[in-house]
């Protein structure tokens, strides 16, 4: 069963002459254990798609379901809770608090979500996979961009979400790193049984994907399955 589905989602911004329809009847489903890639040029509606999938924006029309729950039925607080429990966001920047050590970034999650976070062993496994077990006592400012991103991925995985939503995760990376990050997301999907959804305009990620979608002027089409 799909853990994230969008059905007939439409998004319109503005009214009158300022009216723009950014998403047109978008249908989408993400399964656990699979990597889905949403590709499209700048301005095609990818970020809007991610915002709606993450429950940060209520679409003009259509339904979004996460882990069996409709966003439309949930209060704002319940949506906060869904994002905390079920969705791991990997954003492009500002994803780590500068005044917390890497270890404290996780401790913060423990303070807010008291149950259901990764146990010691699973957490150690994630750190291992990402190769950041040596960095726990460092501050984000002391890490390279790539290390920061891997910490951000670990941070997203820590609450053990069902879904991983990534926003242009390779924007700042060179080709070798792109392959590594691509493999990493694949591994997370398979090993940790996550539904991974990556929004990007970087075709170098295509080899890592189970499904590739094209976003063009707000129309989403299923381009290929691996």
């Amino acid at each position, binding site marked *: 069963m799909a853990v994230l589905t969008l059905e007939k989602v439409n998004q319109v911004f503005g009214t009158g002459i300022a009216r723009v329809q950014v998403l047109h009847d978008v249908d989408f489903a993400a399964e656990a254990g699979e990597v889905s890639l949403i590709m499209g040029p700048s301005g095609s509606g*990818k*970020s*809007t798609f*991610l*915002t709606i999938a*993450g429950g*940060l*924006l209520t679409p003009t029309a259509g339904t979004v379901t996460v882990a069996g729950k409709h966003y439309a039925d949930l209060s704002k*607080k319940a*949506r*906060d*809770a*869904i*994002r*905390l*429990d079920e*969705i791991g*966001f990997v*954003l*492009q*920047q*500002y*994803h*780590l*608090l*500068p*005044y*917390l050590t890497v270890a*404290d970034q996780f*401790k*913060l999650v423990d*303070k*807010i979500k008291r149950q259901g976070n990764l146990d010691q062993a699973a957490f150690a496994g994630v750190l291992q996979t990402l190769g950041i077990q040596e960095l726990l006592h460092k*501050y984000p400012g002391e890490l390279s961009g790539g290390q920061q991103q891997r910490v951000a991925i670990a941070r*997203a995985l820590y609450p053990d979400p069902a879904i991983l939503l990534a*926003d*242009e995760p390779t*924007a700042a990376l060179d080709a070798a790193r792109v392959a590594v990050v691509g493999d990493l997301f694949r591994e997370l999907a398979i090993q940790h049984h996550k539904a991974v959804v990556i929004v990007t305009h970087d075709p170098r990620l295509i080899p890592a994907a189970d499904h590739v979608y094209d976003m063009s002027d707000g129309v989403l089409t299923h381009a290929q399955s691996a």
Partner: protein
Amino acid sequence: MFLALKEIRKEKVRSGLIIAMIVLIGYLIFILTGLALGLAHENTAAIKSWDAAKITLNADANVDMRQSFLTKAQAGKLTKSEAVIGETAVVAKAKGHKQLSATFLGVSSQQYIAKDLQLTSGRAVRQSHEVVADDSLKLSGYKLGSKLKLNDASKAYTIVGFTQNAKLNISPLIYGQLPDWRALRGLGPDMAASAVISKDADYDAGTTGSKTYSAATVIQKLPGYTAQNLTFALMIGFLMVISLIVIAVFLYILTLQKLPNYAVLRVQGVPRKVLVGATISQSLLLVAGGLIGATLLTVATAAIIPAAVPMAFDVPALTAVGVGLLVMAMLGGLIPVRRVLRVDPVSVIGG
């Protein structure tokens, strides 16, 4: 609290500076409060020590004891809750001592003020030209048995006892007999007193030419007293507002820098109240730190300050001022909180 503590620890220099600023402001507030209370005490200690509820003065004296005279008829009938006083300003001189401004207070040994006077040493006045003086005269070198001349009277007075809290309008009191008051003031035997003091809240002399006031009214009308208290209240109030602004500006800048991080935390489902709590606890921690520093400085000051400086470090009053500062910090923290509440998680998606 977790986020606030971590940030203060990481940003040691910034936090140290703001705490240092609050230490200085807090210290200034504490010292001013101590001074305000000390001076207020020196204005009113004697009236408080008499347990005065009502004070009868000449109706034309403009509620000023120094300007008031009452004839025997005006003083009226006294019960054992009333006592008459004769007040006059004097300059005390003695060999080897600097001149000292004081207030001579003639009292009757048959009435309660003289009877209830608590002596710290020596004995009560028994005859003319004996006086009981405020303890502060000891600081000027006077001792039991010391002789002093008051104004230009030729006969010297002898200090036979000391008492504490004998201060009126910041001037030390010298208690003596009523006939000595009349002599110092150059009055005839028909003048009975400057004022009638009563412990009885329902007392009213009710005689022609006199008027009975509450002790509080007379205190408010002590020369300079109300103006002085207002000045202190104003200064302390201003400092409170300054501390609010300092906290608000500092936290506002810090918070503005964090808004993108906060937006990411909101995306990640961190509830607003966690971020608001972090901001408010940060302001409280900074002010608490500043208050601890200010308290230590104040305690150190109280320990070394000369006894002659009129300062009273009254713990309840200083605590109230400290709590006031904490409240100001909360209010100062609320300004950046408004920004935290408006953080839009969507703003960090897409870039």
